[in-house]
Structure formats: C-alpha cells, structure tokens
C-alpha cells in the first residue's frame, strides 16, 4: 500500500455512487461531443473549402443570373486556370417526394476539372459528356434512392416548368465519390446545354454562377477583386468570393444558432460540474470524521486535499473516457450515418473532431478538479477536533 493506492481504495468506497457519477459524466461528455460535432460538421465546409476556388455570382442576389459571356471574360482574366459554370435546377424525384437534393445543370467539359475532389470513373465521365440526357449523381444519393448506372429517372424542378410532353428524364451515366470531407455526396449534375435549350429565349444563355480555379491560392483575394472590377461597368455587377469566404458568409446567417449551441455546450459542462461537485461534497461530508483521524495520525492538510481532489479527478477521467467510448458508435455510426444520407447538404461529414475528444477529456478532468476544489479546501482546513466530533 502507498498513498496513491490508499486514495484509489476510496474511489470505490461508495461503489454505486461512483458508478452513477461516472455515468453522469459520460452522458454529459456524449452530449457535449454531439453538440460540438454538429458545429464542426456545419462549419467544416468553410474550413475544408478549396482555397484556390473562386465563385462569381450576381452582386446583389444569388437568385439572379449572369450573362454567359462573362464565363469567357473570366477564363481570359489573368491568374485563372480553369473555369466552369452552373445553374440551379432544384429538383426532386416525384417517386421520393420527401427527399430533397441539389440538382445542378453544369458545363460537362469543365465541371469535374474544377471540382476535382468529386471522382467519376473515366469511362463513365466520357459517356456522360456525349450523352445529352445523362446525369452523374453522388454515391450517397444513389444508394439512398436505389439508383444504378444505366437507370432512367425523372425529376421535377421547382423553378423550371414541367412539360408532360417533354419530361425531365435523365439516364444515370455515372456515380461520383468524394475525395474530401466537405463534399456533398448527394448532388445530381446534368448537361447545362439541355437546360438552356428548354428555357424561353428571354432567359437563355444566362448562368447561375461561375466557378474558377486560380493559379496561386495565395493571391485568391486579389484575383477575386480583379474579377469584380472587370464587370464593374458592365450591365450586371458581380461578387466574387473564394470558397472559404463564400461558405463563411453563408454560415453568418446561422451564427445565432451556432452561438446558441456554444452556450448549450457550456451548460452541459456546468451540469457535469454540478453532478461531480455534489458527489464530492457528499463524500467529504460522510468522511469528515475519517479526515479528522488521518490528521490526528499526522497527515498534513495537503494530504487530505489531495485525497479529495484525486478521487474527483479519477472519477471525472473515467467518466470522460467512458463518454468518449460511447460517443463514437452513437454519433458516428448511428446519427452520423443518418445525417450524412438524409441531410448531406448541411452535414456532408458528420464525424467527431479528434481535437474535441481531447477537449472533452480535458474538460471532465479539469472540471472534476474545479468541482472538488472547494470541498477539498474545506476538508483540509477542518479543525481536527471538529472533524473528530462529527459523526457521519
């Protein structure tokens, strides 16, 4: 026996209470990790954005389009490597009325060059490029709706009129997979030319947005500004943002939600501290007499404080580890898979951030210490005679 093993004996003193406390901490850690994962999954698109990709859209509002001529102007601008463009189609499969996904009309030649983290088999890509009614879909979407290469599917757009004589029917030519975490694996892309031909002359040859890759990601901000200056005196002005800035401005709309989640994550840590503090305080109260005995034998106040603190920290640590062990299957297997399949636009990659695991463990240890600080201090300050008179 030594001082540490003596202290360890006490952790299991009130086995049932220790088990409950460990469970309480574990539940709090799971909840904390869940909340942080929501924030992480949400904001990750901004963090993992391709730094060399610039999106150019209508200056005032993204629902308005740009003349297609602008694409060529961007292509010949200095510092630009490749350019592609797209229009929003909206769309849902009337057979799966409740499933929403992004359907986008894209330039077949350049789209997968600009979005090179979306991978399609070469043979499929070539077939698609020559098949005007072809489409490429994300692997998660294909799996969920049971689509296979070669299948014919009919979509409805929320924006472009449906004509029963000429329905929006597509052949699935290929399925893309994602090479980066931030890619929505539920997107549906098809030929821009086909959409353009169906639009009344008035709205023809307009693109929703233009995406380009720059030669040097370090100068992406300057290049964006230069692009906008290019169109300053033209009929429509543009707003160019690199992907990170674009995503950040989108997130700004949800900043209140993110802030609320931050507050709630703090609240769960406070609840955890209360549970731990309560347990520690009870233990100290029940054992006051014993602390008196130890002090009478010659133990120092700091020994008593260390026993109280050590017990709390061990409990917090065990609870933290248990919480982390429970959180992985719960969040990644259960919820994560469901969210990635059903809400891939918002949560393309719903996984626990590794650094948050460290934060959670650190928090459970540190907060256990904090919860025990006052009881430990009090226990160590007790007058020996008072402690001895106290009967548990």
């Amino acid at each position, binding site marked *: 026996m030594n001082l540490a093993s003596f202290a360890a004996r006490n952790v299991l003193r009130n086995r*049932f*209470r220790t088990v*409950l*406390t460990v*469970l*309480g901490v574990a*539940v*709090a850690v*799971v*909840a904390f990790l*869940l*909340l942080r994962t*929501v924030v992480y999954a949400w904001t990750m698109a901004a963090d993992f954005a391709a730094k060399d990709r610039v999106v150019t859209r209508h*200056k*005032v*509002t*993204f*629902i*308005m389009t740009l003349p297609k001529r602008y694409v060529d102007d961007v292509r010949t601008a200095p510092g630009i490597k490749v350019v592609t463009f797209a229009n929003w189609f*909206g769309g849902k499969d009337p057979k799966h009325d409740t499933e929403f996904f992004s359907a986008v009309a894209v330039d077949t030649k350049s789209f997968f060059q600009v979005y090179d983290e979306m991978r399609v088999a070469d043979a499929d890509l070539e077939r698609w490029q020559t098949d005007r009614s072809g489409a490429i879909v994300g692997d998660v979407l294909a799996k969920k709706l049971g689509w296979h290469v070669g299948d014919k599917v009919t979509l*409805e*757009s*929320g*924006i472009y*009129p*449906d004509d029963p004589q000429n329905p929006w029917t597509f052949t699935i030519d290929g399925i893309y997979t994602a090479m980066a975490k931030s890619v929505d694996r539920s997107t549906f892309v098809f030929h821009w030319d086909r959409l353009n031909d169906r639009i009344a002359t008035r709205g023809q040859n307009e693109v929703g947005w233009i995406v380009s890759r720059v030669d040097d990601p370090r100068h992406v901000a300057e290049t964006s500004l230069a692009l906008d200056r290019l169109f*300053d005196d033209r009929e429509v*002005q543009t*707003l160019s943002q690199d992907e990170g800035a674009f995503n*950040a*401005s989108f997130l*700004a*709309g*949800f*900043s*209140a*939600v993110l802030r*609320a989640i931050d507050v*709630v994550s703090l*609240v*769960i840590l*406070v*609840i*955890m501290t*209360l*549970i731990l*503090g*309560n*347990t520690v*305080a*009870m233990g100290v109260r*029940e054992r006051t007499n014993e602390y008196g005995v130890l002090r009478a034998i010659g133990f120092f106040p700091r020994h008593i404080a260390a026993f109280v603190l050590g017990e709390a920290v061990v409990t917090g640590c065990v609870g933290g580890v248990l919480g982390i062990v429970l959180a992985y299957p719960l969040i990644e297997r259960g919820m994560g898979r469901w969210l990635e399949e059903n809400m891939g636009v918002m949560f393309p990659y719903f996984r626990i951030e590794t650094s948050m695991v460290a934060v959670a463990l650190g928090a459970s240890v540190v907060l256990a210490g904090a919860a025990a600080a006052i009881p430990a201090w009090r226990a160590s300050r007790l007058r020996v005679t008072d402690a001895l008179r106290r009967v548990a």
Partner: protein
Amino acid sequence: MIPVRYNVRSLAVRKTTTIATAAGIGLVVFVLASSLMLAAGVRKTLGLSGRRDVALVMRKGSDAELGSSIEDPQVGLLGSLSGVRRGPRGALVSGEVIVVAAMEKLGASGVSNVQLRGMTEQSHELRPQFKLVSGRLPRAGADEVLVGQRLRGRFRGLDLDGSFDLRKNRPVKVVGFFSDGGSSYESEVWVDLDVLRTSYRREGFVSSVRVQLESEGKFDGFQALVERDKRLGLQAMREATYFEKQSEGTSLFITVMGSVVSVFFALGAMIGAMITMYAAVASRQREIGTLRALGFSRSAVLGSFLLESVLLATAGGVMGAAASVAMGTVHFSMINYASWSEVVFRFEPTAAILGQSVGFAAVMGLVGGLLPAVRAARIAPAVAMRG
C-alpha cells in the same frame, strides 16, 4: 402518510446538495424551455404572417415565393375570377416581387441575405396589421423604402434616412419603419414594385400574387378556378398555409435539436437526482427504520421519498422555467430555409411551454427518485434498533 414537512426539512438541511441537484435540473429545464420557446417563436412569427382569407398564387411547383414567377397579364386575370373581393380601386389583388439582397451585417462580420419585396398600392390593404412606427410612407414610384422594425440596426444603411444600393448607382433611401403584428414581414424591406423591378430587370414579371377573398370559405372555389386552367400553370394556397409550411422546417429543426439535447441533459440531471436521493436514503436509514417501526407502511415510505425527489426536481424546474422567461427579450436571427434570407425571431414564453417544462422536471424527479425510494421502502423496521 408521512407529512410533507418532513421532506421539506430534510431538503433544507442538506442545502448544498439540494441546491446543486436542483440547479442541474433547472439548467436542463432552461435549455428545454428555451428551445421550445424559440420553436414557438418561429411558428408564431411565420404563422402571424399569413391570413386564411388571402390566397397566395405562385407558379406551379414552386415551394417558395422566391422561386416563383408570374407574367403581368395573369395578375389581371386572377383579379377577375369570382370570389375575389373588390375595393374602391378594383379587385384586391397584389402582384409582388421578391428578391434577396446580400447586405452587410452590423456588429458581426460578413454579409447576410435580406428579403426585399416590391409592393403595390393594394399591398397594405392585404395586410391589416401593418403600422408605420416611425418616419413616413414612401412616395409612389420614388426611390424610397420602408424597413421592417426587426431589421433596425442590424444591417448597414437600414436606419432612418440611411441608404443602400439596390444596384450599382441606384441608391434608395430609408424613409420609415413599420410593424406588422410580429409577423415575418417585419424582417423585410418594402420597395415600390416598379423601382424594384427595373433595378433587378424583372419588368413584366411578379413573383407571386396575393388575392383577398370575399371570405375564408371562398378559397376552395377560387383554388379550383386557378388550378383548372392548365395553361396558366399556377397554384393557389391559403397565405396562412404557405407560412405554416415555411415554418415547418425551421421549427422542426429547433424542436428536434432541442429535444435530443434535452434528453441527454435530462439523463445527466436524473443521475444527479438519483445520487442525491440515494445519499438521502442512506443517511436516514435509522430514521426510516423508526418510521417503519412506528407503523408507517412500505408504500408510505416509498411515497414520501418519491415526493421528496419530485419536490426537489420541481423546485429546480421552476427556477429553470423562470430563468427562461428572461429569454423573451432576446432576438434570434436565423436564415429561413425557404427564402434564404434572415428572419428575426423571438423566444415566445407561453404558459403551456412553461407548464410542460416544469412537468418535465417533475418527471425527471419521479424517475430519478424511483430506485432510491424503492430501496428506502425495503429498509426493515429492525434497522432502527441497530447501532
């Protein structure tokens, strides 16, 4: 029965533990009540926006006004249908244009979308709750705008006499602020229809048409008339239904998120209550044994400890619910999925929500206290005699 006073005293004696446990439960209730209040705020704000005797006509297949477009001649046609109320200036029909504009946020970095609505002379008559709160109404055809009061001070340029660019070199001036009974219109900027259309090159088109019906009951007939003509390619719904649908996603998201979080939190707090109640039982073994020896039944002991646990949790619940009422003063701005623009919501404290939340706390106390109470009930009278 064992008197309640006994429970209240024993909670008071163990002050620290009682406070810590109640505070934990209070925090859970605070989070739960706040999220329910926010969801209610979303439903209320969007729910207040719509009327049952106004039909909203959009292009068939459109989920939202933003994505819909209707040609001008069809607006007149809709006004001529039967069931439409007529005023001194003809049919009460308003074709409006919706666009969203990226505007610079104040007090936070970045831009956010604000919904701009092109208004006609009839627009105000279709919104009886409309009230000018400061400034004046814009002159027809002038480059002047009215701003919903919830946007006040949130974006650059949206102050009285401030201005912002509709497009390059086309500034508009803010001449007044309006309220609309707390509806989501209060998060919009209202512009003259033609000013907005020329700036955005939408001449000849509107996004949606609002039609004042003679009465609520006329809707079905009106809808049938609109949708029978396939060439029009239009759909009609009650304005109230439209906004209800818009609020569905957001309020569902908040409710689901709030509930999932609350379940986890409640588990934690329940464990806290259990720890406390087990300790209470353990330290009162002799007392319980004595009560049993005096003739109190097992169920009386069980009931007494359950009651104590429920009391403890309810006290926490009341504290949490009371604290959540303070959230009523907080504004919460969020993107509305349907319009991709920011809408400002309020936390809406209702008696039902507060009641539910306190009830939830009581249930936590009941569940958390069950096992400890069972243990207490099993203590034998003989324990009283042991040293």
